């Protein structure tokens, strides 16, 4: 997608408008009706939604979404009143259950059997994300799974504007150095430790989203971090 953007020199918001024109009514259209935040928006005024997903594996084309957690960030403040954790009911049809992945996220087929349908969960998530920047630690995962799930549920993947805390951390650690930073320093929990953030139990979607949001607050206070949305993005 980055290749396509470069080729066409179209901004994400241009693509959003184009996509809106051919999207029928429903949750996806409602999401697309909100303009994406302008790249010149100052960090102080930026509205983001920190998102984390728990899945059955790492490949959006094969593995499935089990849970979505999110919490809004307004400027330099996290707003817990918008925090949600959504469990997604898994269809009774063919395909693997939670299986081995339960050892990571702790979600069982029983817990998920009382969850929302994929479409319901996506509708809630898209509603919260409308007009906001998607914030995650390694955004490929969240963008990939949310995109694939939207395709499955609504026929089309949305357009996102995103900020990646792993990328921000990478930029900070490589400023003035040629060496690659150690792997652990880029992981969410390793990065948090650097800023004295509390130790949480990992691999629960809402906790991980909150952990990412807190890391973001710490990162934007670093002198080397940019002051507008564009400077935070790849």
């Amino acid at each position, binding site marked *: 997608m980055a290749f396509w953007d470069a080729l066409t020199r179209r901004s994400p918001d241009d693509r959003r408008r184009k996509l809106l024109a051919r999207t029928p009514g429903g949750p996806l259209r409602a999401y697309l009706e909100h303009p994406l935040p302008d790249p010149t928006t100052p960090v102080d005024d930026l509205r983001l939604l920190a998102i984390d997903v728990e899945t059955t594996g790492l490949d959006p084309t094969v593995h499935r979404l089990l849970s979505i957690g999110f919490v809004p960030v307004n400027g*330099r403040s996290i707003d*817990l*009143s918008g*925090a949600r954790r*959504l469990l997604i009911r898994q269809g009774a049809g063919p395909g693997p259950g939670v299986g081995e992945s339960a050892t990571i996220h702790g979600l069982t087929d029983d817990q998920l059997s009382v969850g929302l349908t994929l479409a319901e969960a996506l509708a809630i998530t898209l509603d919260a994300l409308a007009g906001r920047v998607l914030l995650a630690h390694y955004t490929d995962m969240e963008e990939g799974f949310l995109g694939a799930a939207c395709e499955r549920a609504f026929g089309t993947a949305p357009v996102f504007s995103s900020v990646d805390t792993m990328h921000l951390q990478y930029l900070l650690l490589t400023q003035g150095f040629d060496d690659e930073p150690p792997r652990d320093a880029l992981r969410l929990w390793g990065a948090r430790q650097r800023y004295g953030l*509390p130790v949480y139990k990992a691999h629960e979607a809402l906790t991980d989203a909150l952990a990412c*949001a807190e890391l973001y607050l710490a990162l934007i206070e670093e002198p080397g971090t940019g002051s507008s949305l564009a400077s935070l993005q790849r």
Partner: protein
Amino acid sequence: MDIEVREVRDFLATHAPWEYLPSPALDALASELAIRYYRRGTRLYGVGDPNNTVHIVRSGGVDLRDAQEQLVERLGPGGVFGASSVLTQTPSNLSTTAIEDSLVLIVPTPRFLQLVSEHEEFRRFFEATSDARLRRGADRRSQSQTGEVTLGRTVESFLGREPIAAPSTVSIQQAAQIMAEHKVSALLLVDHDRLTGIVTDRDLRSKVVAQARPVDGSVSEVMTPDPITIGPEARAFEVLLDMTSRGFHHLPVVRDGKVLGLVSAGDVMRLDRAHPIYLAADIGRQNSPEGVAEVCRRTPRLVAEYIHSDASAREISRLLGSINESATRRLITLAEQELGPAPAPWAWVVLGSQARLEAGLGSDQDHAIILHDSAADLDAEQRGWWPRLAERVVAGLEASGYPRCDGDVMATTWCHTTQEWQQHFATWLNTPASQEVLYAQIFFDMRAIHGATDLAEHLMEVVTRATPGASRFLAHLATQAVAASPPLGFFKGFVLERGGEHADTLDLKSSSHAIIQIARTHALALGSTETGTEERLRLASASHKIAPDLTEALIDASEFINHLRLTHQADEVSQGRKPNNRIAPKALNALDKRTLKEAFEVISRAQRALSHTYSTHLMS
């Protein structure tokens, strides 16, 4: 759909005052907070700045400083700030600065005000007067986990029928007839509404029948005139202590000169049989130092159990004092039986915490001997009677679990005639050097427990007539009382000292010592022979030397610290360790830490006041 932010809710649920909130209120609160991050060195707001929100430190640390940049508090995770400016709707009188990279939870003000109005325990946490909180802390510490302990009851609550009384002009026989008629073992003698004496079965047996005294004589010949009395608000516990330490079985109860009744040992005994107070009686029945030691060694465990009932620090220390007294008296009596009668009248005095009745578990021996001046004429062999006695008592006490005094303040060394004692005191008072005053302080807390107790009373009356004029001595006392500043509070598992340094453990003895020294300085300046810290403080307050509210706060602080100290010592004992005075902050709960912090503040206030009175900065 799940809106619970578990990590935040669990954090609140384990920190005061949020932990006092019922679960639904906590859930609602957790889902309304905002979170902000401050880099190390960031000032959140300054003195005089408006502050409209309550903050909770989630991670990192925040320093609160006053307008003079003096450190007032260092908050770690769980610390709350900003509440007073929100509640009083005034600009902040403190500045707040992140001293580490800090994550801070922000409570929406409408929700905070609602919680304050709806939840009492939560509200109390934010009450403006810290003295009130300190009082509750002191009360709470001594509150029961097992329900009301009977010996905590007041005399009034179990005082029986109207007192049986007669005028002191009745004959011995008439008195005996009245006692027989009412089936009582003691008769109060009251003239013109005033208690003049008491006569008991024992008096009739030993003074009348045994001596074949005529029964038509006046009862006033055999009564105990002007007996010791007790007030109706006294606890059963204190009655027992009085009785066991004096060997009485009856105590008249008097309020404002009016006789309300009579309590007997039996009345109190019936209240509670399983009580460490009976150790004192057990000790008195032992016929060898080994026997005394054996009973005494049961003390720590029994007292440890007792501490966990609703006894106050004051009661526990009085109990420990009475056990120590019983052991000392018994050991003296056993030594006397061995050595024969003393060559001259004398008194055994206890000093320091034993004299103040404020000893803890594991307190060492502090005692001395006062000889009648006639002993000055005795030869060396005769005068050697007392060191021989003292050595036996010291060894016996050591075997009973009272370590020898490090500074050698013991009767084996300190055995002097009244005149010699007066010379020692005169030296301390008139040419004081600060080290000597430090050492000598303990002698100004003196209480006779055996022998010619009037020797000690007389000595201390003479000494305290001189103390008010000994201004250099008093200034030294005051200087020492303010020398050790209490800590500021706690920060992340450490004790936070005033300069911002961190210590691993809190020295509870040092904290209570400051209060003791303040009280002693005031009492000696006033020429009082009083030894108890609480009594000394009340006296200073009545003489306008300490503000009444500060006095009450100091007494509460003392009670709280001493209770904590005794509980800590009891815990050490039950884990098979030697009791000590150093407590690790992790052994304290949040409320204890908070109350301690207030106790430290009260001590600091009293030190500043004392320092002002005595201009201690002029002393080296």
